[in-house]
């Protein structure tokens, strides 16, 4: 068990291509940190630098109190789980799990103890004599996890370990890995491009883009208080709806206008603006799909923030329904997540209400939030 500290870490490839820029993060012992971002954002490179598989161009990396920039991967006391979860096909599950320990000349009894204990944790004890061919995708992934667990590392590193699994198994394994973290009480650093994985597993999430950390926070804070438009759009599925609006004063009210639509922004929200001079300017307004409503009671509750829309597609998901809507002044669809009993149908014209307490606003140039917490 150990803390991990990344201090002003850079990765610069030949040709002056910067993959990671000034990455600073202190990861506490036993924390479950998830690095998330689109492909090419530098998250895997960062993980690989922690693992020692990638040289650090600049900055300092500590595992525990030890500076490990120049320590070989095998001596860093970390274990990495890759997305391939490749197993040696001619070896049994037991031998696959034991292989790394044998390379390290671990005594046989100790290998047996560790493999059996890991197998018990992962509920694969009954599979130890099987060959990988006879395993399902989920079982294979567990064996790959087992291979890491037997090393009893200070830090576990996961590089998109679930991305080769089908969607259903991915969901199941998410829970398994969370449980594993609780059971092992070890530091986990996990890389994924899937924001749902990040949201459901992490104690803290690091959102990255173009090699730069955008925001580090708990899942709930990232969701509720995104620091910029990128984070707002990246976290949440379906993603936040964005509107180019003009803020204007009309009598006592401040309104946001787009196309033929106009909604009143509540005073409490205006009170959170970092700078009132945004009133009168064009900004980007965001609202999450679940904060858009089509029910009568919500239309009445948010009567100052209703807009007319065309329903293009409805998706019945069972527990909820997604509406894909269009309106003037908004390029592309608005997505609303509404009650499954909604009567809105494709091809119809309806009114929707925006929960104005849940609006987000961003500077059009910098894309940063213009709201205080």
């Amino acid at each position, binding site marked *: 068990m150990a803390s991990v500290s990344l201090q002003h870490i850079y990765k610069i490839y030949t040709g002056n291509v910067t993959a990671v820029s000034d990455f600073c993060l202190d990861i506490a012992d036993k924390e479950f940190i998830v690095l998330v971002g*689109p*492909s090419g954002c530098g998250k895997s490179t960062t993980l690989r630098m922690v693992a*020692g*598989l990638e040289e650090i161009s600049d900055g300092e990396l500590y595992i525990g109190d030890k500076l490990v920039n120049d320590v*070989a*991967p*095998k001596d860093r006391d970390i*274990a*990495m789980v*890759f997305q*391939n979860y*490749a*197993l*040696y*096909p*001619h*070896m049994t599950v037991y031998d*696959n799990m034991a*292989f*790394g320990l044998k*390379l390290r000349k671990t005594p046989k009894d100790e290998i047996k103890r560790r493999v059996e204990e890991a197998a018990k944790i992962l509920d694969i004890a009954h599979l130890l004599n099987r060959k*990988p*061919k006879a395993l399902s995708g989920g079982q294979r992934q567990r064996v790959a996890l087992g291979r890491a667990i037997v090393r009893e590392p200070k830090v576990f590193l996961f590089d998109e370990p679930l991305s080769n699994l*089908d*969607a*259903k198994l*991915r*969901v199941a394994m998410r829970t398994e890995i969370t449980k594993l973290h609780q059971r092992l009480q070890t530091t986990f650093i996990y890389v994924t491009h899937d924001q749902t994985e990040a949201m459901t597993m992490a104690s803290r999430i690091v959102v990255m883009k173009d090699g730069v950390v955008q925001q580090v926070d708990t899942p709930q804070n990232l969701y509720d208080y995104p620091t910029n438009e990128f984070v707002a759009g990246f976290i949440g599925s379906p993603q936040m709806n964005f509107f180019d609006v003009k803020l204007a004063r009309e009598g006592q009210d401040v309104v946001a206008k787009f196309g033929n639509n106009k909604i009143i922004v509540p005073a409490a929200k205006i009170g959170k603006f970092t700078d009132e001079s945004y009133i009168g300017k064009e900004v980007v307004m965001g609202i999450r799909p679940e904060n858009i409503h089509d029910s009568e009671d919500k239309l009445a509750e948010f009567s100052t923030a209703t807009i007319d829309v065309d329903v293009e*597609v*409805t*998706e*019945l*998901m069972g527990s909820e329904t*997604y509406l*894909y809507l269009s309106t003037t002044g908004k390029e592309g669809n608005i997505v609303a997540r509404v009650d499954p009993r909604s009567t809105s149908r494709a091809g119809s014209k309806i009114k929707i209400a925006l929960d104005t307490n849940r609006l987000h606003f961003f500077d059009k140039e910098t894309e940063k939030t213009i709201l205080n917490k």
Partner: protein
Amino acid sequence: MAENNRFPEASCIIAFRPEDNTSQSFLQPLRDLAPLEENDILAEDGAGRVLMIKAGEEPEEIAEFALALIDTMQGETGLRLKAGISDVHHAPEEWPAGYREALEALQVGGRFHPKAPVQVYAHQMLERMVEQIPPELRRSLRAQVFGEHPSDILTEETLETAESLFEADLNLSDAARQMFVHRNTLTYRLDRIKRETGLDLRVFRDAVIFRLLMTMPEEK
């Protein structure tokens, strides 16, 4: 070169090379870390690659072995390798042909699937066919369907949608299940792809064209 005198009845040639093409020899660490079986042979080819003659009848199984070994090498030494796997061969006289196949798998795979660590010759029929099309014609064919900026259309979501549909033999329900999305969502995405490219991936002919164009690497 041979580690013993008995030759396997069926084997594939695996050609390993460092991902960054460094010239440092990695034969010894690979030998130390590889769980070799009795008839396996490991040797350098004099061009910075290590060849393994691996007993086995299934290129897929040998590909998995190579992948596991690449993971082991990476975890233990930090060295990232790529591997090309030949077809199955049944006599030592066929090994030179296997060697060429393994190298070709590495080269072709490097151009078409640069991120994949293991390339299997037997799986590259389409890629080898596409390679025969002159680059200028490939560029023009892609532009006809995807426009001047293919990456605007070939987004991660579009590629995942197309791949899943092809994997499911164009069965919409299976593909939707595989992707864990509602069937309507898949239909919606396919309609969008049709609007953007003119190709309806639910139709076999259009699906073939899309698959072929998708396989073509973006010309620089």
